[in-house]
C-alpha cells in the first residue's frame, strides 16, 4: 500500500514537473516546424515567470498574472521574430542575447522595484487553486495522480493535441510546415514566409509565457532569479529527440519530468550528494541526443559514430 502511495506521488509530481516542459516544447515545436531554432525560449519563459508574479501581485489575482504572462510572452516572441526575420539578425546569437537580457533584467528589476535579491514572494498573492476534476478525482490513486492538479497542468495537456491539429489540419499549420521544409518553394507558392514565421514565433512566445506562469504561480506564487533553470532548453531537446512530432515530444517531456521527480525523491532518501541527482535529467538529454545521432548515422550507412 505504501509503495502504491509512493508511486502515486511520483506520478503526480512527474506531471507537475513536466508541465512547463510540455508548454515550451510545443513552442519549440512550432519554431522547429517553421525552420527556426528558437533558443530564446528560456528567456521567454523566464519573462513569463516574472510577469506572472509581479502582475499577479499588482492585480491581486494569480489569473491576472497568467494572462499578462501570456501577452508579454507573445510580445517577446514577436520581438524575437522581428529580430531574426525582418532585421535578419543571427538566430543563435539573438536567442542567446535575449536569454541573458531577460535573466539580467528580471534580477535588476527585483532589486529596484522590490529591494530584494535572489527571490521575491509577494505576501498577498495566492497561487492558482488546485482543480479537482469532479468524479475522476475521486478514483483511488489515479484520481490523485492525474486529476488533482493546478489548472495549467490540464492546459498543457490540451496544448499537445491542439498543436498537432494546428500543424496537420489547418491552413496555417500547412504553411508553417511548408516554410520549414523549403522557404523558397513556399514563397513561390505565394505564401508570405515572414508572416508565417511571426505567427509561429508569437504563438510559441505565448506558450512559453504560459509555461513560465505555471512555474511561478502554478503551485507556489514566487519568483526566483533564473527559476527556469534550463527548462526551456530541455523542451528544445525534447523536440529534437522527437524530430518535430508533437506526441513524441510530449512523451520525451514526461520522461524528463519523471527523472526530475525521481531526483527530488532520491535527494531525500539516499545519502549521495543531491547535486548528483540534479544532474540526471540533463545527463539524460545528452545521452538521448547522442543515441539519436548514432541511429541517424546507422540509417544513413555512415557507420555508428
Amino acid at each position, binding site marked *: 500500500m505504501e509503495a502504491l502511495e509512493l508511486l502515486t506521488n511520483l506520478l503526480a509530481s512527474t506531471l507537475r514537473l513536466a508541465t512547463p516542459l510540455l508548454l515550451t516544447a510545443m513552442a519549440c515545436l512550432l519554431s522547429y516546424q517553421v525552420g527556426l531554432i528558437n533558443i530564446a525560449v528560456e528567456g521567454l519563459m523566464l519573462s513569463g515567470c516574472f510577469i506572472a508574479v509581479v502582475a499577479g501581485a499588482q492585480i491581486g489575482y494569480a489569473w491576472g498574472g497568467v494572462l499578462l504572462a501570456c501577452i508579454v510572452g507573445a510580445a517577446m516572441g514577436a520581438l524575437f521574430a522581428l529580430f531574426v526575420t525582418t532585421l535578419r539578425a543571427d538566430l543563435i546569437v539573438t536567442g542567446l542575447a535575449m536569454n541573458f537580457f531577460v535573466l539580467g533584467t528580471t534580477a535588476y528589476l527585483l532589486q529596484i522595484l522590490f529591494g530584494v535579491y535572489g527571490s521575491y514572494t509577494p505576501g498577498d498573492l495566492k497561487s492558482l487553486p488546485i482543480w479537482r476534476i469532479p468524479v475522476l478525482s475521486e478514483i483511488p490513486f489515479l484520481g490523485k495522480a492525474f486529476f488533482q492538479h493546478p489548472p495549467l497542468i490540464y492546459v498543457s495537456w490540451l496544448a499537445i493535441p491542439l498543436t498537432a491539429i494546428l500543424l496537420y*489540419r489547418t491552413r496555417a499549420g*500547412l*504553411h508553417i510546415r511548408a516554410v520549414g521544409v*523549403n522557404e523558397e518553394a513556399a514563397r*513561390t507558392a*505565394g*505564401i508570405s514566409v515572414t508572416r508565417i514565421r511571426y505567427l509561429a514565433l508569437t504563438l510559441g512566445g505565448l506558450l512559453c509565457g504560459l509555461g513560465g506562469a505555471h512555474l511561478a504561480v502554478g503551485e507556489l506564487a514566487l519568483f526566483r532569479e533564473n527559476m527556469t533553470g534550463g527548462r526551456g532548453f530541455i523542451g528544445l531537446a525534447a523536440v529534437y529527440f522527437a524530430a518535430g512530432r508533437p506526441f513524441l515530444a510530449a512523451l520525451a517531456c514526461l520522461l524528463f519530468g519523471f527523472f526530475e521527480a525521481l531526483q527530488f525523491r532520491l535527494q531525500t532518501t539516499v545519502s549521495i550528494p543531491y547535486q548528483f541527482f540534479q544532474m540526471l535529467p540533463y545527463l539524460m538529454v545528452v545521452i538521448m541526443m547522442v543515441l539519436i545521432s548514432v541511429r541517424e548515422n546507422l540509417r*544513413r*550507412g*555512415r557507420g555508428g559514430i
Partner: protein
Amino acid sequence: MTPFLELKRISKSYPGVLANDAVDLSVEAGEIHALVGENGAGKSTLMRILYGLEHADRGEILLEGSPVHIPNPNTAISLGIGMVHQHFQLIPPLTVAENVALGLEPTHHGFIERAALIERVDQLSRQFGLEVDPTQRVQDLSVGIRQRVEILKLLYREARLLILDEPSAVLTPQEVESLFEVIQRLAAEGRTTVFITHKLREVMAICQRATILRRGRVVDVLHVAETSPAEIARLMVGNDVEPIRRQGESQPAARELHLDSLSALDDRGLPALSDVSLSVFGGEIVGLAGVAGNGQQELLEVLIGLRKLVAGEIWLGETHCTELPGRQRRELGLAIIPEDRKLEGLSDALNIWENLVSTRYYRPPHSHHGYLHIGRIQNDAADLMNQFDVRASGPNIQLGTLSGGNAQKAVIARELASQPRALIAAQPTRGLDVGAARYVHEQLLALRAAGLAILLISADLDELLSLSDRFLTLFEGRIVGELSAAEASRTKLGLLMAGQDLEEAALAGREKEMAIPE
C-alpha cells in the same frame, strides 16, 4: 493583334553583372515561345522578374496590352502567370494535393477541406492526362512525376501563361516526350508558354518562335520553321561551334580502376547501389549514363571514401583499397571531379592557392613537419593557374569570386596536379557555358590520349556520345546494359536510362515510336 505578353526594354543589374540589358520579348496567345541562350545569358533572371521574384531596374511588362506591376509571386499568380522552376519548388514531405494547392487551399474556418482538395486535384490531373495520385507524398515520386505536380500547381492556379525553366534538364528522353505532349495539349487549349532551354533539339521540336539571348541582350527573334539548329547555336554562342569529337580508337592499357560488386545504402537507409561492377582501363573514357538520383552521388561518395560499402571491393591498379581512407586512395592515383563543385569540390571562403593545394598540402614539398611553405605553394598555384587557364589576377584571390567555368578549371587543375592514374569526372560541365564546357571536354580527351583511365558520369547524352569509348548505364543503383561506341545511340541510351530493356523494346517496336528528334 496585341501580343499576350510583352516585355519592353527590361534591364536588371547585379553588382558587377548586367544580367538583362534592355530586353524585349513578345509572345502571342497560345504560342509556345522558346527563350534560348547559354548559361548566364539572362534567361532565368528575365523570367524571375516576370514572376515577381526579382525586380527590374528599368522597363515595363504588358499583359494583353495593359501595363502591369508585379512586385511578388502572389501578384503574378493572380495575373495568371505560373512558373515551373528549374529546381522544383516542392515540399517533399507533403502530399501531391497539399503541394498543388499550397497557398490557395480550400478551407472552412481555417481548417483544410481535405476531401474537396483531393477531389479537385484528381479531377485536374485526369482532365490533362497527368496521371498523378493526389494522396501520395512528393518525396516518394520520381523526378518526372514531380514535374507533373509542378504543372498541376499552375493549372490549379488557373495560369494562362506558363513559364517552364529548363524543364527537361532532369528528365529521361522518354519523360521529355510526355512532357512535350502535355505542353502541346495546354497550348491547344489556348494557354501560352515560355519555354526556357539551351537544348536546340527541343526548340525545334515544339516551339513556334525563339528569342535568343546572349550576355543579357536579345540577339534575334526567329520563326523556328524558318531556321536551323546551327543558326540558333551560332546566335547563342556568337560564333560557329564545331562539335567536339573523340578521335581514333582507344588503346586500352592496364586496368586502372576496378569496382567489384559494390553495394551501398542512401541517406534514408535504402539500397542506392546494388552489385555495381565496372572496370576502366588506361587510355579510355567510360561513359556512365543515367538520370541524376539513380545512385551517381552515392557511387561518387563510396569512391571518395565518404560512404560505407555494404559489400564489394574497390581496386586501384593492383592495390585493393576498399578499406583505405580517401587520402590514401588519392595517393594511389585516384582523382575526382565532384558533381557539385561548390559543395564538394572547392571552398568558396578560401583563396585560390589554398584550394589548389588542399589535396597535397600535408607533405613535402608543400610542407615539412606541419609547417606550410606558403611561398612555394603560391608559386605552384600560379603555375597551375597558367597551365589550366584559370583566369584571376593571382592565386591570392578568394575562390568564391571566380565564375563557374574558372572554378571548374581550378578543380581540374588541382585534381591533375597529383598526376593521377584514374579520374572520375561527375557532370564535369554542368552549369558551364559552351566555351568553358568545350575546354573541359578538350582536357578530358587530352588525358585520354595521355593514357589516363577516365570514368565520365553524366546525364548529358551529347557529352557522353561525343567523348566515350564505351557506355554503361546506371538505373536505380544497378548497371544496366553495356554499349560500345558503335552500338550507342541517343535512343538506346535514353531507353536504358529509363530502365527499359533494349531487346524487349526492340521487339515491341517501341524504339521507333519513342525516337527523339535528332
